[in-house]
């Protein structure tokens, strides 16, 4: 089995974070250095994520009732023959319990059974909800001057007297919780990565993330991932500068994804401040002993000898190289 085959077989384990740190690192290094395996990994990751969209289904409540009713029948716990000699008295006692228990269930089966809701059935608020409401369900009193945008009109069936009015409405939501709550992390990530429209919120969100998620107990790899995406994709230099500065200060942002984003920024960001902060972040990683792959070493070397690059960036790239032990 070739090395690529071995690595690919480990990819599902990487998705479930079941590899030990050393093996995880080795696998990531291979993925970064092998284009074919990199594509495979991307495909695996996308498929894995997509599989998650299959929703959980709740079994019918009647099933629970049926089960509880069925154990009201004479279900004797199975015991091996040799243990029966020792536990006959226990079995007899158990039989008494079962009979008593079945009476309980039988008695209550005739009455409506009140089933307490399980945690799985508590619905969560989704910020991405879209609703279709009959007019009768909407209050005719509009208060608070909501912000309504993107209005459109629908008349699907001209023979039908019904029409539709479609719009986006802004409602103010405050979500409270700990910085480590997944919903909080996901909301912030969404704000950071929302490329759909130019938003002053993204810049402020990065300031806030820097304050909150630089604390060691609050680190979350998703925040680092979101910042890495901002560094890659945001068209505003000021926002990219903030993103890379925040990444540099966040403990635990030494993932392969972050390194890749830093390398890309060092290679090709047009703003020298971004390149400086990217190379400073790489220097810090090198000094902390994070291993660098051949592609990163190559980028640093090229940057160090690049005649038209800012001298400070070149010197820092050289310093990063001097700290690396391949």
């Amino acid at each position, binding site marked *: 089995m070739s090395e690529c085959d071995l690595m690919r077989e480990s990819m599902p384990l990487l998705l479930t974070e079941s590899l030990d740190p050393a093996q995880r690192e080795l696998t990531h290094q291979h993925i970064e250095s092998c284009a*074919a395996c990199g594509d495979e990994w991307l*495909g695996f990751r996308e498929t894995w994520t*997509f599989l998650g969209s299959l929703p*959980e289904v*709740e079994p019918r409540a009647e*099933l*629970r009732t049926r*089960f509880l009713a069925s*154990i009201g029948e004479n279900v004797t716990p199975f015991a091996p023959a040799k243990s029966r000699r020792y536990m006959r008295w226990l079995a007899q006692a158990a039989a008494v319990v079962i009979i008593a228990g079945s009476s309980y269930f039988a008695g209550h089966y005739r009455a409506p059974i009140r089933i307490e809701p399980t945690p799985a059935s508590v619905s969560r608020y989704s910020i991405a909800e879209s609703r279709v409401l009959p007019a009768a369900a909407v209050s005719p009193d509009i208060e608070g001057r909501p912000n309504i945008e993107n209005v459109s009109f629908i008349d699907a069936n001209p023979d039908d007297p019904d029409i539709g009015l479609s719009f986006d409405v802004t409602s103010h939501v405050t979500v409270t919780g700990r910085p480590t709550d997944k919903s909080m992390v996901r909301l912030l990530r969404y704000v950071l990565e929302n490329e759909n429209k130019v938003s002053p919120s993204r810049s402020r969100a990065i300031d806030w993330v820097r304050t909150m998620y630089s604390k060691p107990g609050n680190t979350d790899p998703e925040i680092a991932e979101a910042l890495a995406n901002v560094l890659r994709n945001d068209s505003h230099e000021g926002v990219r500068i903030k993103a890379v500065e925040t990444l540099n200060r966040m403990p635990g942002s030494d993932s392969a994804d972050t390194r890749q984003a830093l390398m890309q920024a060092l290679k090709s960001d047009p703003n020298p401040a971004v390149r400086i902060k990217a190379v400073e972040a790489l220097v810090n990683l090198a000094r902390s002993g994070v291993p660098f792959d051949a592609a990163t070493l190559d980028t640093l070397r090229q940057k160090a000898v690049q005649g038209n690059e800012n001298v400070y960036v070149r010197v820092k790239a050289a310093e990063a190289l001097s700290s690396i032990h391949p």
Partner: protein
Amino acid sequence: MKHLSDQELMRIVQAGDFSPASEIYDRYSSRIYNFAYRFLKNSEAAEDATQEVFVKMLKHANQFHGDAKLSTWLFSITANWCRDYLRKADNRSKESDDVLVTLPAPAEHSPERTLEQRENERRIQKALSALTPEQREAILLSRYQGLSYAEIAQISGCSEGAVKTRVFRAMETLKKALGGEASGGERCLNAI
């Protein structure tokens, strides 16, 4: 009962007291049901499986060893039941194209699930049914139930290496079926 661990609940059951039954059911029925449903693609069979699993759990409680995980044991029972079900030739034809929309809506979605979401669900279900039963079992336990390969090996009665291969092959098939574009087919050349 809610404050007791699985092991503690099972000890009570093993002592002949079935009062923890409802608590154990509440903890695991959803997972068992979802696994059975996705494996068999038949809601009726999944209900039967769920019922049978918990009855067997009580009947054979003494076979449960306290150092094991209850979830692993329950999934073992479920997987065995599902395999037996499929083995019966006449049951293969009953693998229907149940679509989720005929069931009560999933807990976390509003009734007006979008067309796109329903289409995604249908595609995933279809892709899962293209897997062999062994691969489907492995991927369902790994992806949706979060079990380790060691646990899956125990449930499936095979080696961890076999589980690894099954999961990998399942992912390859699912990737192709669900529109994975990555070729990844060339042998990579390692630079020395």
